[in-house]
């Protein structure tokens, strides 16, 4: 699975996710990636793209839950994303997200996640495992 989230100079947010799914999956199996609110979600507060075991991500409506914690609990992006990922069975999920404030979060409960990010103030990161 691959994904990208972005906020542009005008403050617009967007997310995109694409995948081949699970190895050895049954023909016709749909994962989290195309299900809005599970693997992919964006609203005026944040944009989220998830990856991992689709069945877990769907059950936990991962992408939408990040937005809900921000919207209804007033949590900042990093805290909202960390809390959602912590609630999904270990080894099943990773996500990247950006917020309307330009915060970036790349969080996962797997051994690693291929990830990269950059912000206008000059920060950038490319990695696989926890630093």
């Amino acid at each position, binding site marked *: 699975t*691959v994904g990208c989230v972005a906020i542009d100079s005008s403050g617009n947010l*967007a997310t995109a*996710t*694409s*995948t081949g799914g699970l190895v050895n999956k049954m023909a016709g199996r749909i994962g989290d*990636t195309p299900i809005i609110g599970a693997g992919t979600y964006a609203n005026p507060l944040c944009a989220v793209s998830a990856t991992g075991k689709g069945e877990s991500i769907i059950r936990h409506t991962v992408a939408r839950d990040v937005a809900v914690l921000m919207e209804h609990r007033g949590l900042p992006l990093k805290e909202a994303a960390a809390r959602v990922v912590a609630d999904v069975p270990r080894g099943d999920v990773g996500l990247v997200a950006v917020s309307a404030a*330009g915060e970036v979060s790349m969080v996962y409960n797997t051994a690693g996640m291929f990830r990269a990010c950059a912000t*206008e103030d000059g920060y950038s990161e490319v990695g696989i495992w926890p630093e």
Partner: protein
Amino acid sequence: MGWAIALHGGAGDIPRSLPPERREPRMATLRRSLDLAVAALQAGRTALDVVELVVRELENCPHFNAGKGSVLTSDGTVEMEASIMDGNTMSCGAVSGLSTVVNAISLSRLVMEKTPHIYLGFHGAEAFARDQGVETRDPSHFITDENIERLRQAKQANRVQIDYTQPMKAQPPTDDNSRIG
């Protein structure tokens, strides 16, 4: 706070022992995609354009599980899926069950922008792709030797694998859903 971008190439059981010949092509694609995105954002492109162009870049890299390099179903076929969403308008598009479309993410954007629907799947999505004239290839274009081997391992272990699951010894069938995904 200005523009910001984040991208991923999949999460999973990625061993720290991953050999350089498996790690470097992926890292190079992440860096190239990040550079593409930064240049596009600095040029004033919209967030929607940027997320689409980054995911196209990743779909076209055979080392990631999307587009070319998609993993295989138990039938040895590819069934690709994607979705895209605009935060401001909450417009969104999604596709599933694609076996010939080179960039599923661009087809999902066309679903968002050219149809009254959100989600098209399987033969309807393939027909829409032909109708829209997006690039398509023979399904064999998307199948790599590495993924044929991964399917063989997964079948041998009688389990499904998320991205980067490492080969394991054959597991006795269990009654959880790990055998059927």
